[in-house]
């Protein structure tokens, strides 16, 4: 059994787009469409949260693979504002990974995250993850080291991360770009958790 006790939630944005009031639309464009999809995603996350009373930590995989066109307004609503709302929310600790952020979406997602001072872990190619948005050089190095390792135990922290990047590791955890197990103190790459739970 895993030492990590997380509530995994997978959401296919293309499917949400079809289910919302915007069901006639096939592309994720215009701000009202993005807002409607974000609200639908939040409703789905909330529903899941209500069913699992004990788990206060969740990891959500938001899948954009089936979305062909994603404009800046929708990227802002569905990626940046979803993250921002989650960080500001107090009900539980939520971690997000965005899947299917291919070349055609990458610029939009990068731009809207930077604009709000956010960062996110995204699968930009199959099984290849990137840290998008605003981050320091130290955060970038620390995230890459964690990504290569997958899991860094308490005893490995001093060797896997450079000494100058120790504060950046804490920052990654605070920004929910990495997960520290409350039981073991080990630090998990979100991509590793995706492989484990989805």
């Amino acid at each position: 059994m895993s030492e990590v006790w997380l509530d995994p939630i997978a959401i296919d944005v293309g499917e949400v787009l079809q289910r919302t009031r915007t069901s006639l639309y096939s592309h994720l464009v215009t701000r009202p469409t993005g807002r409607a999809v974000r609200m639908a995603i939040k409703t789905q996350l909330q529903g899941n949260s209500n069913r699992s009373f004990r788990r206060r930590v969740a990891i959500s995989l938001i899948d954009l693979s089936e979305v062909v066109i994603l404009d800046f307004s929708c990227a802002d609503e569905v990626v940046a504002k979803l993250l921002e709302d989650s960080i500001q929310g107090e009900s539980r600790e939520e971690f997000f990974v965005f899947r299917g952020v291919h070349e055609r979406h990458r610029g939009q997602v990068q731009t809207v995250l930077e604009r709000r001072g956010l960062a996110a872990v995204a699968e930009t190619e199959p099984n290849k993850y990137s840290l998008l948005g605003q981050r320091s050089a130290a955060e970038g190095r620390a995230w890459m080291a964690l990504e290569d390792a997958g899991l860094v135990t308490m005893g490995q922290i001093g060797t896997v991360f450079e000494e100058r990047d120790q504060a950046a590791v804490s920052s990654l955890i605070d920004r929910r770009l990495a997960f520290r197990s409350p039981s073991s103190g080990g630090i998990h790459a979100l991509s590793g958790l995706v492989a484990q739970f989805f």
Partner: protein
Amino acid sequence: MNVIPVPGTLDHRTIDGLLDQVALLGEERSLFDARRLRWIDPSGMVGLLTAGAVTAQKQGAIPRLEVPESTEVRGYLSRMGFFNSAQEVFEIEGQRGRDSNGDSDVLLEVTSIAGNADVHDVVDRVQQRAGVILTSKLGYSVTSVVQFSVILSEVCQNIIEHAEAPGWVAAQAYNWKHRLGRFVVVISVMDLGRGFRRSLSDEHSSRYGDRWSDATALEAAFLHGLTRFSDSGRGQGIQQIRRQVRRWDGAITIRSGTARIGQVPAWDDSPPLVDGMEPFPGSQIAIVLPAKVEK
């Protein structure tokens, strides 16, 4: 009856002259005389509709439109779906062709933008047609159709979110053999709304004091990304359009009120800022994307 002569060439370079004339019109009903029209691009078509709509607002009477004598030009206007919108704006005089059923080589027919559903419709239609034009005529990458659709989406949303009034969009590819020696795609978006100065006035005019004008409002939005919304995620549309147009070595100009601002590439000799034009409502955006030059 005011007679407004439509020039023989009505495109993104000559449309300002027509709009200036309309800005100066009196109350007497007007006739737009397009009989000598020989060449028209999306800016000309959308601009003519905008000019007609503003004239109707000013004069309280639907203006008349004398259609071009050239059957070729009339046929082209029909293929571009111009008359569908024109019949809502003008009392049309003369023989007009039948509008396109959507099966022609047109990139994007003249389309009215009044709500978000219209933006979705534009993106859906362009998706089906833009790929071939962008790759074969402009030499852009296969994925460029996504960026092109994003540009169209953002520029059309500008009408809905900032103008708070209807507008039109159109796009087509041309061979600018003599002017540039290569193919271009021309996109035109115009609205009848309140323009950049009024849209931004409540939030930003006090900072500019006496300097607040159409030109400074355009600079604020176009160069600095200012928007009337306090949300930090807003105001990205025009900035990102500019960035993508620059990547493709294209040109973008926006006229609003008495000023026009532009991002001008080396191949274009237009001035980056023009002020002191006649006050015209709304905003008028033109984008020219040239074929890629192999280095």
